[in-house]
């Protein structure tokens, strides 16, 4: 269990204690302020080199990380290996060794295979590894930015600063995660983040989209979606990929919408102050009705905005703790 991200890898949110997560959220609060300045830059990581290594293309996540690194004054090496020669069957060790030879402090890694970030962390123990999504396993910064978005929204409602609330606002909070949990690294990271912070996590999905032995997860499995919605404080929707909704896991996306989509009708069951999250990109009309996605309760744009400060916090904490002369 990691009690502070300082000098540590971020591979799996399940490794982080409540204190470690709160430390990231608090650091992110201070970076929100930086992002409001005209000159959106602090010298915290000046002279440090961050490589972003995306074996799977995700322009949004990559830009968010690279922007965060640049605002901390780090040098960024951007390697979009998804389109280069690195293909299935190429040694992870060889690829990372090549990049390590350029002299890097941290690598932000996105990979289609679960566990890739953990494997890379063994190959380059002197480099900090930030998992930007590995297969179906984890997407830790998404889990952190979801928690950050929820805490910020709830603390604003109370007229207090997020950093002053620690994990208090999560105590007893009912978070409902809906959809393709089996294939979602976001769901795994969200469950870890919310449970560590003290929330009650519920999941709801067609049984074919629930992970194996989900009963061993620290969550409540809700079978009645309508009922679960009416009791949720936070609803986290997940993207249903079209290939999974075409008869393999559920008969059709239309049927999915009927049983588990957040339609306008269903949205009426929500508590008046409930929050809706979605990691994007949304399939409007499938997991969420377009009009629901645009309700004030929907935090989708705030989630995107939280990305940069949360990733600044992660990079800062992870890298500053590492040995390198002047920072110690």
């Amino acid at each position, binding site marked *: 269990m990691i009690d502070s991200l300082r000098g540590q890898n971020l591979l799996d949110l*399940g490794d982080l204690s409540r204190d470690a997560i709160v430390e990231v959220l608090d650091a992110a609060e201070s970076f929100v302020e930086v992002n409001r300045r005209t000159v959106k830059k602090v010298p915290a990581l000046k002279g440090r080199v961050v490589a972003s290594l995306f074996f799977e293309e995700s322009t949004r996540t990559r830009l968010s990380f690279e922007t965060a690194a640049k605002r901390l004054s780090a040098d960024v090496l951007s390697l979009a290996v998804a389109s280069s020669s690195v293909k*299935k*069957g*190429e*040694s*992870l*060790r*060889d690829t990372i060794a090549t990049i390590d030879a350029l002299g890097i402090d941290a690598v932000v890694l996105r*990979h*289609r*295979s*679960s*566990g*890739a970030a*953990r*494997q890379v962390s063994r*190959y380059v123990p002197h480099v900090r590894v930030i998992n930007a999504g*590995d*297969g*179906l*396993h*984890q997407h830790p910064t998404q889990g952190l930015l979801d928690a950050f978005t929820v805490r910020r929204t709830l603390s604003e409602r109370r007229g207090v600063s997020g950093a002053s609330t620690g994990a208090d606002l999560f105590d007893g909070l009912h978070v409902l995660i809906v959809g393709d949990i089996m294939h979602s*690294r976001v769901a*795994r990271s969200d469950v870890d983040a919310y449970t560590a912070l003290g929330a009650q996590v519920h999941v709801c999905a067609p049984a074919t989209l629930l*992970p*194996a*032995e*989900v009963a*061993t*997860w620290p969550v409540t499995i809700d079978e009645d979606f309508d009922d679960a919605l009416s009791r949720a404080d936070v609803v986290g929707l997940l993207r249903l990929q079209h290939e999974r909704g075409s008869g393999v896991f559920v008969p059709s996306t239309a049927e999915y919408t009927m049983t588990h989509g957040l339609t306008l009708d269903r949205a009426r069951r929500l508590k008046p102050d409930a929050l809706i999250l979605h990691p994007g990109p949304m399939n409007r009309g499938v997991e969420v009705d377009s009009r629901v996605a645009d309700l004030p309760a929907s935090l989708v744009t705030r989630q995107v905005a939280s990305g940069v400060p949360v990733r600044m916090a992660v990079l800062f904490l992870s890298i500053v703790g590492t040995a390198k002369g002047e920072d110690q």
Partner: protein
Amino acid sequence: MIGKDGVEQADLLVREGVVADRAPSLGVPVGAHVVDATGCWVGPAFVDLHAHLREPGGEAAETIESGARAAAIGGYSLVVAMANTEPAIDSAALVEYVLSRGSRARVEVAVAGAITVGRRGESLAPMAEMAARGVRLFSDDGDGVQDPAVMRRAMLYAAGLGVRVAEHCEDARLVAGGSMNEGALSSRLGLVGRPAMGEELMVLRDIELARWTGAAIHFLHLSTARSLAMVVAARREGVNVTCEVAPHHFTLDESACADFDPLYKVNPPLRRAQDVAALRAALVRGEVDAVATDHAPHPPESKDLPFDEAPAGVLGLEHAAALTYEALGSEQCDPHRFFDVLSRGPARVARVRHEDFYPRHGGHGGALHVGEDANLVVFDPSSRWVVDRDDLHGRSRNTPYHGRAMRGRVRATIARGVLVVDEGELT
């Protein structure tokens, strides 16, 4: 001496490839080489039903010669080379190729022929032609025969020839895309699982096919408590079934995969701790016919791939005996059970015993009677040692046991009457 009838302290003389004499005390003939086996178990050398020697096609990982070196160190006098080479061993010519390479190796090499052409699971391979070259075991291992109609015909045909089919039980569709046991851990790790049911449904199917066809079936590397229970029940009902378990399945559980180290990726996958316990209990009770290694060498770079892309398989030949000794209770280990599962049982399944008149091979898994072919092992149960992957004798290094403390070690191996390992080293 761990003979079939009992344990005794004795001297044994090997001359011209056979057990020439055995008595409480023998003089040393002039020119004889003496192997001091004081405090050791001397028994029939081990027989491995399941070794992937990779030749032809996979020589970067292993060859028949290098695999035989590892086998000799492990105490084996005979290994059955699996058919999933490139190309697959699905013709008399390829059988002859492997046998001729094997005839020059340190231990004897028998061949498992493919059940279907190219191991594609569609049309029957020329089993009679291969059987005429001495093949007694047929398997598409690497994959199971998926189509029940093909398997039914293969079993009918095999029964007519008096040979045995050996099945890798995993339903390809149920385990598709999977890289570890399906369960709470795979669920948390985001790895697609290979459910126990994927194995058990095929075990169930093949038991019923064997019952109906009357054919002899051997179940390769059973890994779950339920698979074993079904096979034990079928045997009691008189179905002609035999089964093996692999050392990795009775020494390691799925938790080894928690750090995404592809070294622990095998098919069928490492299962739950309760399955490991069930396999060990079955070994102790004598419900398992054989410990078989599923020795699966891979070159180092293949284990630097992401977990889901890495090939499955671990090395087995050099450590199986010590791991079996441990599973049978170390000091409590019954030496008869030990030689039953490592030597006599597998020799019976492969039909390479003295009394099987195997056309191409000498007698293995014997009783240490005078006149038998000299295939012997000296196992020192008191030896303590630590596995070092840089001290292996095959071509590959993918052992999951690096750094593990072991009890019991092979001191000497005599294969085809030749001392191939002495003082724990290749001669």
